[in-house]
């Protein structure tokens, strides 16, 4: 299996998230405008800057994200500011979820969460999968985890 990238629509999810963050961020500025301490454009400017950053981040994140199932490990490569490459040995997989949040359902996507007993990378989420893709991935990981024989997953 070669490195897989995410479904392009995941950008919509991330951009939506950036919109929400931008909205929250501009709230205090809006408050400042309301009490007359800040000019009219302040909340828009603040929100706009955050939104622009968020959108750029979302796009870069999408470009960067890839995952790959190798012979004995699941390999993830992601992160814009901090690049993180995680190797999850298949033996260590405790259980696998496929899940769909409300926004993901809205754009017809799903994600797959892989749990290990680790303390730091205890759950690894692979977003931006098609619903079928997510359940296929779950089944595949399950099969591989069983084959890998995680007798003592701890």
């Amino acid at each position, binding site marked *: 299996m070669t490195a897989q990238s995410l479904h392009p629509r995941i950008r919509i999810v991330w951009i939506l998230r950036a919109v929400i963050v931008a909205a929250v961020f501009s709230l205090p500025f809006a408050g400042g405008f309301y009490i007359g301490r800040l000019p009219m454009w302040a909340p828009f400017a603040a929100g706009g800057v955050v939104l622009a950053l968020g959108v750029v981040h979302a796009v870069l994140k999408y470009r960067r994200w890839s995952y790959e199932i190798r012979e004995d490990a699941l390999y993830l490569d992601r992160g814009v*500011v901090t690049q993180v490459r995680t190797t999850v*040995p298949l033996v260590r997989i405790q259980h696998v979820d496929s899940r769909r949040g409300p926004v993901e359902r809205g754009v017809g996507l799903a994600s797959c969460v892989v749990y*290990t*007993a680790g303390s730091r990378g205890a759950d690894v989420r692979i977003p931006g999968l098609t619903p079928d893709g997510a359940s296929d991935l779950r089944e595949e990981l399950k099969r591989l985890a069983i*084959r890998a024989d995680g*007798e003592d997953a701890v």
Partner: protein
Amino acid sequence: MKLAPQSVPYRALQKVSGFVVVAFFVANSNDWGLPAAAAAGGAILIAALAYETAYYRRFDYELTADTLDISSGVISRREREIPYRRIQNVDVSQSVIQRAIGIAAVDLETAGGSSTEGSIRFVKPAEATRLRREVQRRKSGSSAGEASATEGSADGADRDAVGPAEEELFAISPGELALVGALSFDGRLIGLLVFLSSGSVPVLSGFIPEASATALTATAIVAVGGLFLVSWILGAGVAFSNYYGFRLSRAGDELRYERGLFRRYSGSIPTEKVQTLTVSDNPAKRVLGYASLSIETAGYAPGQSGDGGSQAAVPIATTDRVYRLAHEVESFGTPTFSRPPKRIRWRYVFRYVIAVAVLVGVAFAVDWFVTPDLPWYGPAVLLLAVPPAAHLKWKHRGYWLGDDHLLTRNGFWSRTVTVVPYYRIQTVIDSRTIFQRRWNVATIVADTAGSSSFSGTSAAAVDFELDEAIELREALQERLQSALTTQRNRRDRFEWFEGDVDEAVEAGPDDDADGVDVADAEEAAGAGRAGAGNDADTGDDDAATARDAGIPDADRDAERGDTQSGDSSDSGSDADSDPVDAEDEPAIPDDGVVRPDFSTTDRDYSEPAERIDTGEYAVDRFPSDADVAHQRGGRNGEADEGTSDEETGEERTSDEETGEERTSDGGTSNQESAEDPAESDGGSAGDEK
């Protein structure tokens, strides 16, 4: 088994104690306060007593063959079964009051979960000790083969009383205890006060504008000095009472610890559950030649660590003693750490310069807004300390790849050396921040199931050259896989050779090479049976295993049945499966070792397996070929005829794999094999840990 009766009033009073504070204020509020508070207090106390009595009556725990069953709960009831194999550690603690009235709290930890899985409050101290011993004994009894190795051929009753001999690994000396006190400085108080006062300094100086700068400084110095003294005394007192009488010993395959002056802690940690070892020291300890060691298991969930997570931490001992002890637990070699590239010191220099610049900025701002006399550029003196600091930081970083362990080292002020067996690695994380990318370096973290991520001591090789980091990542990955293979082989061996493990290991390989003929294998089975003292246990366990895994191995089960019924007279244990075919009884080879038959079957796995209904659970009449201890040639044909099955062939095949692997390890049920109908009673608490 019931709790100790004293636990009822104790628990009730414990519950009510929170109310006392409220009652105190109520009592002081007005004339009617006192009687009102007394009445309410009495009512609450009675209610609490009633509740605790009900709790006491409802609470019941039982040690079964392979699980510890706890049923509890007054309003919502809970039945919990904890497989012995999954228990990470058992902790017993007693506070002063608990000791006075003769009760102890027992906590059983399994991996994962956000809280203690088995909490028994409270039992008599003797019962607590018995529980701990019993759990340990049954655990080693249920991991096949090991019981006989550790406990000899004594029968159940005997083992119960004696247990494996204890070998003392470490006992704290009075000098060390004094040092623990002297060196444990509780920084939290200072942190808190600094945090509080940082906000109040401008406010205070606003109140006393006429006081001279020198007076202010003098007061500050005295205050800070007093603060340090108080923190130090507090820290010393806490450490002293915590580690008073610290003792660590090895008994069989577990570590036992005991400590505490006011509150007694004791408990056990199976050596096979040890996740990481951490040796830590600070400059003062390094100068004096001391260090401390902590032993981490997956038992304590992150954030749960009430008093520092690992309870079996050796607070302080001379460095070589610490390393000797560490080697006892995990035998890693003598480490030679490789350091990050030298140029990375510049990175730390920049970092510290920025920190100093920020400090100067803050000082300048304070100076600007508050007292214009102070020398705001004072913190710039710290610049002098920057180059040595950067050098020291670099110097104390490092990693080392041992034969079976990864060692990492980090930190100058609090230096930690983390020992991670490759076998314990969960995930390998390679991260590069935007700044690290500028320097072409990366950080590799080997994550384990230990609890240490909160205290930041997970094994990390920080700031290594990209190439080296990638190499390290790949190496860790490979070594984990090979460690797993080794472990698997060892485990399977335990499963196959029931009799004398050592002999089996010796005799195994060369005999296997020339193939095992039927008679030989049959003989072997008999001998194994006769030789092993723990056969009944194993048999029971196997049946349970098979049930757990969902793919019991009918033939083997039947043979175990034989084994048990043949053996039951002297072991006193009852076999739960009847012998299916008595003439099937295998013969005994001269060396008394049961050997596997490695001949592959001609079974077509695309065909569904034949299943037989035992009434209790469905079993695969024809077991997969990998882990059958003593298979006879005739069986291959007979099983191929069977086609009655509830499942599709493909599904079966994949489950088969689970089954064969699960059965071989004695009871690990994998959640993913849950589609198997036979699995219904498989999953129990803490199973996937």
